[in-house]
């Protein structure tokens, strides 16, 4: 190892019994969550919690994170840690905008993909061919991508009409689709603020209102990734490179090839996330536009246990809280306090049931704390509102039992013909 620092996210405790989440269970959990949410909304009166606007906003904020996370997933499933997602996203924003303002948004999307893929390819060359520590390479790519795009902006956007050295001219928007009738009907229903029904209507409404075509593409990429990686021969080979490349090699799989494909694809997806930011979310390229979303995407992927569905859940959670806070945080986040209090009560009850008294008491104390905070105030200070997505993520991670399992050869160096 060149630097002795393959840092890897935590591995699951050995021998934890895996209980697979089956569909009925998932649906049940989702339903329970919804009821809880609805309850909190009705009690707190924060009707924005599940409004159409809130959900569609959440989606818009979640997409770039989710695309970055998906990118991370491709790379890490093939055994390459990709902390360079941020850089690849930056390339996506820049290339996407550069092509987008000149030749239209869809060409921009294509170039965003290509720009990100370029970053991915570089990462592949450094980590796969030269076997350099993956984190070093990723960090270097982040610096390089940021520097490179800032530098190039001076020569491109800086001279373009309506642009500056820090931002691109405006890009034509991509068509938004709103399903006529349905959208309004759901919005109306949501406006009634009925228990549960309005919530479901709001969520569904958010998913069909002002939906950019690129958002649709991004959402479809999640099941598509799952299908490709878990249901095709190509995917099996790719995953085998992340689990045991030597075994794959011994069966005639060209490990280098799959790693190259995976990491390039990873970059392309992150680049698409960047292009989304520039073209759909903002309409222009701006320096520093990604604002660490690549890292958050990586976090979402770890959160989701290296699985597309879990990753999407992580990105969604983040987008949701992010949207909550930006759309009138003081009130919305205040309602979240109640939710947290209830969840903590449930956690305490569960620990009690499992006869783990100390954690139960701790959870209960926190529950009371949060409840008091909720009851005694009307608003959460805006500073804390800002932290809501991050605190939520931490809380969810800390409360959910950690059964994360990264691909076994993730981040480890591999050289052809040197396996034992």
């Amino acid at each position: 190892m060149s630097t002795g620092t393959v840092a890897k996210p935590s591995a699951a405790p050995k021998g934890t019994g895996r209980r697979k989440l089956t569909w009925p269970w998932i649906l049940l959990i989702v339903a329970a969550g919804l009821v809880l949410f609805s309850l909190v909304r009705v009690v707190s009166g924060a009707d924005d919690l599940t409004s159409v606007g809130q959900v569609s906003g959440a989606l818009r904020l979640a997409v770039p994170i989710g695309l970055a996370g998906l990118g991370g997933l491709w790379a890490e499933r093939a055994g390459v840690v990709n902390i360079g997602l941020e850089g690849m996203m930056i390339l996506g924003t820049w290339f996407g905008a550069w092509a987008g303002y000149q030749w239209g948004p869809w060409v921009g999307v294509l170039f965003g993909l290509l720009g990100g893929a370029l970053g991915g390819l570089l990462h592949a060359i450094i980590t796969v061919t030269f076997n350099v520590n993956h984190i070093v390479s990723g960090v270097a790519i982040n610096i390089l991508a940021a520097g490179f795009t800032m530098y190039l902006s001076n020569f491109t956007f800086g001279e373009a009409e309506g642009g500056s050295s820090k931002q691109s001219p405006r890009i034509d928007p991509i068509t938004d689709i709103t399903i006529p009738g349905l959208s309004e009907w759901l919005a109306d229903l949501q406006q009634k603020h009925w228990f549960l029904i309005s919530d479901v209507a709001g969520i569904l409404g958010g998913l069909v209102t002002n939906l950019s075509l690129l958002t649709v593409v991004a959402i479809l990429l999640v099941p598509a990734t799952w299908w490709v990686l878990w249901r095709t021969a190509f995917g099996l080979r790719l995953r085998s490179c992340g689990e045991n490349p030597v075994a794959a090699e011994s069966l005639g799989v060209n490990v280098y090839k799959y790693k190259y494909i995976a990491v390039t694809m990873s970059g392309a997806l992150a680049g698409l996330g960047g292009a989304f930011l520039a073209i759909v979310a903002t309409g222009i390229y701006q320096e520093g536009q990604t604002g660490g979303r690549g890292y958050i995407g990586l976090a979402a992927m770890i959160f989701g246990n290296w699985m597309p569905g879990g990753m999407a859940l992580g990105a969604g959670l983040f987008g949701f809280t992010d949207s909550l806070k930006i759309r009138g945080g003081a009130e919305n986040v205040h309602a979240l306090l109640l939710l947290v209090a209830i969840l903590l009560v449930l956690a305490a009850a569960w620990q009690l049931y499992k006869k783990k008294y100390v954690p139960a008491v701790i959870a209960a104390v926190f529950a009371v704390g949060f409840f008091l905070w909720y009851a005694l105030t009307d608003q959460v200070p805006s500073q804390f509102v800002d932290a809501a997505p991050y605190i939520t993520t931490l809380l969810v991670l800390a409360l959910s039992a950690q059964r994360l399992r990264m691909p076994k050869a993730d981040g480890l160096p591999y050289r052809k013909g040197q396996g034992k």
Partner: protein
Amino acid sequence: GKSSSEGGSASTSDSKATKAAIAYDIGGRGDQSFNDAAYAGLKKAEDELDVDGSEAEPSSGEGDADKVQRLTSLARAGNNPVIGVGFAYAPAIKKVAAQFPDTTFGIIDDTSVTGKNIANMVFNEEQGSYLAGVAAAKASKTGTVGFIGGVEVPLIKKFEAGFAQGVKDTNPKAKVLTQYLTQPPNFDGFAKPDLGKAAAEGQLDKGADVIYAAAGLAGSGSIEAASKAGKWAIGVDSDQYNQAGLAEYKDSILTSVTKDVSDSVYNLIKSVKDGKPQTGEVRYGLATDGVALADSNPKYKSMTDLIAAVDQAKKDIIDGKITVKTAP
């Protein structure tokens, strides 16, 4: 040892032409906001006063020491005045101004450092915002208006305070929704239109029908959202009705609270060139039109009731009948 500006071409400062310099705040030139406004002032001075202008950009994550070095280097190169764009330059100017008594230093948005050769160019943003509040309260049908601040710093809170006061004084029952986009030192809130848009959408959903965004570039997202919803937006800093990038939404831009940074820079340079350098606090308020409410939108002009109320408020403020708070 030598200092960076003693040697080299820079030290040949014997030419008669006035040299002026501005040192930018984070973001630098091209931010289409604060820094660009300062640049516009410099540019105007170059064009009209035959001044030799130079600019210097900060690097990200730098400290006071770097700013001291930058200002020193600019001053040594013979620039006069040297203008620090933004309050972050205050500690640096305090140090450097003492060393260069013959050079005038300008600082925008700060009066905490003072000196014979320091010009503190400050704006009564709260006064302009008060007028915006009056206009918003008058224009609102729902009685709910929104304020969006880019980053929650005292400077932007001045905007909030003035706006809220203006609204309440006009319509005591009106509700002001307030939303800040980010917390310092995360200055994304001045730069990310998507955040401004999301925040505006949230406020619109809560019934706001006039939205005032003091959020730099992010404000364009708020304007977009308000326009799409068929509601009013109020712009900031420059007259956003005439801004090319926002032409699509101009009809929805009720008015803008202008803050004439560009003129303040120009004025300082001119004063130095004229041999009567400004010093001490140079305040730009309603009285001098340093801050003002734009009236380019024909629809705005047609609201006579509203204009009357705004003009009355303006008069009251200038006369001192109304004092506008600077903190919410």
